[in-house]
């Protein structure tokens, strides 16, 4: 477990039929107390623990998870990574994450298969195109790579895209972020888990929080299904279940939990070498390295914790994808799933201290949290270690819902909600 993966270790283990590998991380049993406890072993939670250990020298950390590691939304998303957000606060936060993505495989010594194949956001109306130009200009001013492409150029780069003028929603152009792309979602959770475990972080699965022990407005510990765990600093990174945790601390969150569905097709030969998103017809697609089309849907309108969406949403998404790519009309779908996303009123996350001293929340990522995984963990670790927000997440505090300083990113969020 202590050894790094390298060409030589792969080669040597390969000669022994790959039978000598150690587990990538240590499965721990809970100690009575920790310096910091992170609730939620998804990508964001594990990244938080990793950066707490690596950048802030805190080693006495537990990451507790009610299910299994990376089994929530980390395993249930369409893995798109980009940073082309409109407002400065959001753009800089997501760009911070994108820069970390670019060095993540080396940093973690774990191949997260980050593939910068570019992301297209299509425009179908004149207003779409005006919004795209505005967003691209804003991106360029923030030092983020983005260009506006016309329909001809989009067609040249994505030959299978239907750019016919006779289409019901004709493609007029697109914004393109070349540094955007996709990553292997499971590898992100496994890579952070392994790297955090190496720094001594305890990863405890099947351990659900059932209550919070708060004394005089200060965090004292967590009641869990595996007993009481004492800690004066707790970071909650529980996506769709954030409201449930907040309620245990007597807090209210501006969050509604909705199912968000996605599906993948059978494996095919390479046909789509980039990521295509369209807000107007509402679908997004890419092709994984295994050859599956990975297709994302919109959220169900009603709130739910069931990890199961409504069939009519699938129907609408399938219609949108076939509108864009008529060639996919007879592709068979292999799997379909739903994740519970924590949507906020301004489609921006909450990375914040709370009224309870020592209790921190990182939530509200809604439909687009995966792209931020390393950046989110990085700034949240800072927030917990210093008990004050990192400059990049200062604007994402809970108090923006009383000051009114919302960061309205519905336009760039990609999924309507």
């Amino acid at each position: 477990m202590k050894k790094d993966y390298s060409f030589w270790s792969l080669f040597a283990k390969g000669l022994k039929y790959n039978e000598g590998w150690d587990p990538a991380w240590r499965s721990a049993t809970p100690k009575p107390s920790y310096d910091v406890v992170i609730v939620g072993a998804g990508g964001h939670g594990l990244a938080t623990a990793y950066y707490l250990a690596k950048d802030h020298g805190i080693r006495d950390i537990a990451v507790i998870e009610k299910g299994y590691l990376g089994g929530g939304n980390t395993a249930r998303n369409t893995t798109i990574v980009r940073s082309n957000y409109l407002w400065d606060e959001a753009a800089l936060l997501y760009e911070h994450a994108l820069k970390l993505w670019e060095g993540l495989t080396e940093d973690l010594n774990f191949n997260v298969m980050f593939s910068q194949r570019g992301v297209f956001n299509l425009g179908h109306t004149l207003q779409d195109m005006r919004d795209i130009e505005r967003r691209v200009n804003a991106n360029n001013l923030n030092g983020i790579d983005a260009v506006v492409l016309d329909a001809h150029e989009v067609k040249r780069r994505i030959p299978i895209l239907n750019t016919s003028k006779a289409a019901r929603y004709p493609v007029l152009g697109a914004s393109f972020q070349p540094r955007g792309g996709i990553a292997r979602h499971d590898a992100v959770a496994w890579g952070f888990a392994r790297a955090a475990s190496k720094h001594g972080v305890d990863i405890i699965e099947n351990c659900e929080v059932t209550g919070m022990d708060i004394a005089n407005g200060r965090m004292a510990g967590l009641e869990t299904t595996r007993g009481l765990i004492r800690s004066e600093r707790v970071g909650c990174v529980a996506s769709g279940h954030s409201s449930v945790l907040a309620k245990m601390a007597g807090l209210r969150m501006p969050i509604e939990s909705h199912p968000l569905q996605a599906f993948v097709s059978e494996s095919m030969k390479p046909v789509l070498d980039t990521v295509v998103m369209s807000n107007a017809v509402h679908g997004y697609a890419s092709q994984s390295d295994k050859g599956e089309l990975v297709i994302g849907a919109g959220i169900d309108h009603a709130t739910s914790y069931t990890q199961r969406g409504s069939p009519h949403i699938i129907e609408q998404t399938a219609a949108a994808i076939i509108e864009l790519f008529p060639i996919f009309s007879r592709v068979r779908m292999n799997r379909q799933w739903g994740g519970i996303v924590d949507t906020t009123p301004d489609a921006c996350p909450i990375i914040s201290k709370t009224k309870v001293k020592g209790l921190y929340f990182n939530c509200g990522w809604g439909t687009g949290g995966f792209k931020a995984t390393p950046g989110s963990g990085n700034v949240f670790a800072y927030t917990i270690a210093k008990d004050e927000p990192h400059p990049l997440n200062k604007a994402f505090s809970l108090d923006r819902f009383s000051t009114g300083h919302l960061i309205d990113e519905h336009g760039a969020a990609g999924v309507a909600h």
Partner: protein
Amino acid sequence: MFVLFCPHCREKREEEEFGYGGEAFRVRPAAPEAVDDEAWGDYLFMRNNPKGWHWELWTHTTGCRKFFVVKRNTATNAIAGSWTLAEGRNVYDAEGGAG
């Protein structure tokens, strides 16, 4: 896909006919200018978002276009019933508020 009963049309119809209106029985502060920013922000943005029984508004968009309330379990999608706003309020109050 839910099948919802519209208490105005007195018919069960599929979810696609309806629009979702979010948490029911939120009360606007009687004197908005008198409450502080936190109370106003709480009214505007904060939600109970429970995992369990949830009172919520629906509107019969492609039917009578009237609002009504539904009590639904967000953990299982089980539906306890639908009522007009006035009837629903009585049931909600009799239960002692939010589930």
